[in-house]
C-alpha cells in the first residue's frame, strides 16, 4: 500500500481538496472499484485498495495497515482513518493522498476544483499552474475526458474523468506510472460503510508521542 500511496502522491503534485460547492449535474451513481497502481511498463505496484463511493463520500480499504480504511466526506472536508476491529479512528491527515485524489468532481469543470486544491496545497505557484482539457479517451472500457495538469517547473501529469461517475478514474505521473480504478461496478453502497459508529474512539498520535518520550525508545539528545 505504501507504494500505491507514493504513486498517488507523484501523480498529481498537488493536494486535492474537494470544494463544498454542490454540483448542478444529475446525481452520479454509487459504485465500487479496485485502486491499482502500475509502473510505466504497466506492471502492478503494491497491493490493491478497494474504493467505494456514495454521494460525496468515499471509503478506501487498504491492506497496510491490515484492516484499516479511510473515509472522506467532500461536504465536511474531513478524512479519517478507521480501524474497525479495534473501534478506533484518527484524522487521516497526510496518511494517504488517495483520499484527496479520488473524490467526486464536477465533470464539466474539474479544473476549477483542482486549481483550488493546488492553491490550498501551495503548489499552484504564481498563477502558472495549468489544467487543460484534452480529448476524450477510453480508460478501462469507459469513456473519459483527459486533462493535463502542469505545475510550475514540472512535467505534466494527466487525469481522466469519467463524466457519468463524476469521478477521476485514472491519474498518470510524469514518469509514466499510473494509479487507476479497475473493475468498476455500479452498485448501491450500504450507508453504514461510510459512517463512524458512536462507540468508536478517536486517538491522538501526539499523546502517544508524549508517552514514548518517557521511554528508552526516544533517543533524541537533550542538548
Amino acid at each position: 500500500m505504501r507504494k500505491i500511496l507514493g504513486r498517488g502522491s507523484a501523480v498529481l503534485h498537488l493536494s486535492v481538496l474537494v470544494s463544498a460547492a454542490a454540483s448542478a449535474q444529475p446525481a452520479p451513481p454509487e459504485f465500487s472499484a479496485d485502486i491499482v497502481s502500475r509502473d510505466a511498463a504497466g506492471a502492478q505496484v503494491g497491493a490493491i485498495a478497494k474504493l467505494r463511493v456514495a454521494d460525496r463520500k468515499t471509503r478506501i480499504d487498504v491492506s497496510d495497515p491490515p484492516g484499516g480504511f479511510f473515509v472522506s466526506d467532500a461536504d465536511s472536508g474531513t478524512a479519517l482513518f478507521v480501524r474497525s476491529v479495534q473501534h478506533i479512528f484518527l484524522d487521516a491527515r497526510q496518511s494517504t493522498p488517495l483520499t484527496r485524489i479520488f473524490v467526486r468532481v464536477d465533470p464539466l469543470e474539474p479544473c476549477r476544483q483542482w486549481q483550488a486544491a493546488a492553491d490550498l496545497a501551495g503548489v499552484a505557484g504564481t498563477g502558472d499552474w495549468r489544467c487543460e482539457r484534452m480529448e476524450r479517451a477510453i480508460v478501462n472500457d469507459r469513456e473519459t475526458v483527459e486533462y493535463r495538469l502542469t505545475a510550475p517547473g514540472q512535467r505534466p501529469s494527466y487525469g481522466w474523468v469519467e463524466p457519468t461517475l463524476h469521478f477521476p478514474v485514472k491519474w498518470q505521473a510524469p514518469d509514466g506510472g499510473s494509479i487507476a480504478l479497475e473493475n468498476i461496478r455500479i452498485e448501491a453502497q450500504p450507508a453504514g460503510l461510510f459512517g463512524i459508529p458512536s462507540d468508536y474512539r478517536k486517538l491522538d498520535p501526539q499523546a502517544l508521542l508524549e508517552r514514548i518520550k518517557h521511554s528508552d525508545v526516544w533517543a533524541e539528545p537533550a542538548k
Partner: protein
Amino acid sequence: MRMNCRNHLAWGASAALSFSLLAATAGFADDKSNDADAADAVKTESPIKHVIILIGENRGTDHTFGVYKPKGKHQTISNILSKGIVNEDGTPGPNFSQAQQFAVAPQPLFYIGAPQKAKTVYTGNQMPQPNTNGAPSAQGTTGAPFTPAFLAAAAALDPSPDFNANTDTILTTGFTGLANNSLDSRIPNAGVLPNGPFVLQGPNISDDDYTGATTHRFYQAWQQSDCSIANATKANPTGCLNDLFPFVMATYALNDSTVPAVQKNFSEGNSMGFYDAEQEQASLLKTLADRFSLSDNFHQSFQGGTGANHFMLGTGDAAFWSDGNGNPITPPAGQIANPNPSAGTTNKYTADNNFSNCSDFTQPGIAPIVGYLEALPYRPAPNCATAHYYMLDNTNPGFYPNGFRAPSPAAQNMIPPSPVRTIGDALNEKSITWAYFGGSYNDAVALSNDAVTAGTAATLNSSTALGAAALADPAHSLGVAYCQICNPFQYATSIMGDPAQRTAHIKDTVDLLADIQADTLPSVSFGKPDGLLDGHPQSSKIDLFEAYVQQVLDALEAHPKLKAETVVFVTWDEAGGYWDSGFIQPIDFFGDGPRIPLLTLSEYSTGGTVNHTYADHVSLLKFIERNWKLKPLTDRSRDNLPNPKMRDDQPYVPRNMPALSDLFDIFDFDHRVNQPYLQ
C-alpha cells in the same frame, strides 16, 4: 491507581503442573521430517534448532526476583530474600543493613569507588524517596493508559499483533493519580521509607502500575556500583558495594531553575524499588521460572543504558564514532562526556554526554575506571582501541529504519554507520537464517519513508523526524514506538546499508508470529516489543512485557514440533538503574553491570532450576556460536572469553575471571520434558 483488571494473570501460582515426561532424545540428529522448517537441516551441537531471544526493558534480578523461592528440588537462589535483606512479605529483614545506601561528600573529580571517609549515612537513615518522575498521571482518551472504554485504542495504531486480548485491559490501567516529579505516595510509607530496598506493592501500587523511571547511564552506573579493590572480600573479590544508587540519582543533575527541563532528573530513590514474586507480582515470569530455568548470575553487559547493551548483545563489543567508512574519528565536542563534578556542586556532571575515548587516561572519567580494572587481581584489559570514542549512552543509529542513511550524523546527533561485525554477519557467512523482529517496525519504515519524502530525514534526528511524520501520518504513528537504538543491526553498514540484507533480516513482531505459524522461523531470532509493551517502568509496565512474552509462547504452544526444538530466552537490556545485591565481574571498561534475569524456556531446561554460572548478554552470542559452530565475531569481541570455572565455595565467582558462560550448562539434553509454557 489500582484498577480491577489483570486478565492475563490467570495462570498464577496455583496452576497445576502437569508434566509429561518423554523419553530422552537419542542424540541430536537432524530432523528428517519433510516440513517447511529449513532450520531443521542445519547441523547443530544440541537438539536446539531455533533460538528466540526476547528482550524487555529495565528490570533487574532483585527488582524482579528478589523475593522468589525456587521450585526445583534442592535449588537455591541469591536474592534479597535469601540474604535476609527483606522478608517474604517485602518488609525489611534481619540483614536489611546490608543494602544500606550512602551519600558522599563532594569530591574534586569523578570517582567509582568513593573514599570510605567521605561516605555518610543519610540523616535519620532516610534515603532520597521514590518519585513519580514521568509516569502517566491519569488515564487518557488519546494515549496509554487508556480509559476503560478505550480498551483497544492503542491496538488500532498497531498493524502488528502487539496488541491483543492479553494487553487490551492492562493498557487501561496503572496511572499514578499523582503529579509528575512528585513523591510517589502510592508506595507504602513513601516519604519515610528506610534506607534500603522497598517493595512496590500495596493497596495503591502493584506490577500493573506505571512507576517513575530511574536514570541508567554509563558513568552514573559505574559510580552507583561503588567498586574499589579496597572493598574486596573473598565472596566479593571485585569490591563492588552497590551502595550509592539513590545518591548518584539525586546528585548527578540539578533540578533548579538554571537547568533546562530536559536535563533535570527526578529519579531520586526509585532505584531501590522491587517486586515480590512470592505475592504474585510479575506472576507470568514467576510461573516460567517455576517451570523452566532461571539464571541468578546473568548480567547486563554494559554499564548504563539501552543502546549500548543491545549493541553488545549483537556484537560482543561497543560502538564507536567513525567517519561512516569504518575509520575512527573524534565526534563533535558536544558528544563527549565529562562526568567530573561542576564547581560548587556535590556531584553534578560537567557534561553528561554519550561518548568517551577510554584509551586516553587523561580524559575525564577514564582514569578511575581503568585504574580500578588494573587493580583487580585478574587485571582485565579495558579493551579501548586507540583514538576510538565509544558510544556509552543512547544515540540513534546512523540509519533510519527504512535504511535511509543520515547524511550528516554529527549534525543530526546520530552515530555514523558502524563497521563493527555483528552476529548477523557471522550467520550470513554460514547461510544460517536469522532475523530481528522489532515491534512496530513496519510502521517505523512507513514513517521513515514519510520523513525522507518530507526532507526531514536529511536534517533531523531520527526520533524527531519520525515524531513529526507520525503527526502527519497517524495511520502509521505507532512507528514512533519502534525502538531504533534497541536493534543492534540498525547501526551496521553491512545490514542496514544493504537493502537486500535489511529486508531479509529486519522485520516486525507480526513477522515473528507469522513465521512461527508457518513453521518458517529462522534459526536465530531476536524479538523486541515496541515502546508501549517493552516493560519500561515509566512508559510501559512489567505486565505488558509479560503479555508480549505470552503471545510468543502461545504461538509456539500451537506448534508442538517447532516448540520442541526451540529455546526461548527471556531477558532484559539492563536493570534499568535498579539496585541489585549480586556480585559483579568487571570485564573491561564497559561492564559488566548489575544482574538481570534470564529465563531459559525449552524442553531441556525444566524443573524450576536456578543456574548460577556467570553470564551476560554476550553469553547468548556464545550459545549461538557454539550451537551453530561459529567462531568468535572478532579478535576483540567478548565472545572470546572462556567459560567460567565456578567454585563450590563461592558459586557466583568464576575462578578464571574474566569468563562468560555459553549457557549450555543450563540444559540437560539427555532429559527432555514436554510441558506447557503456562497453564
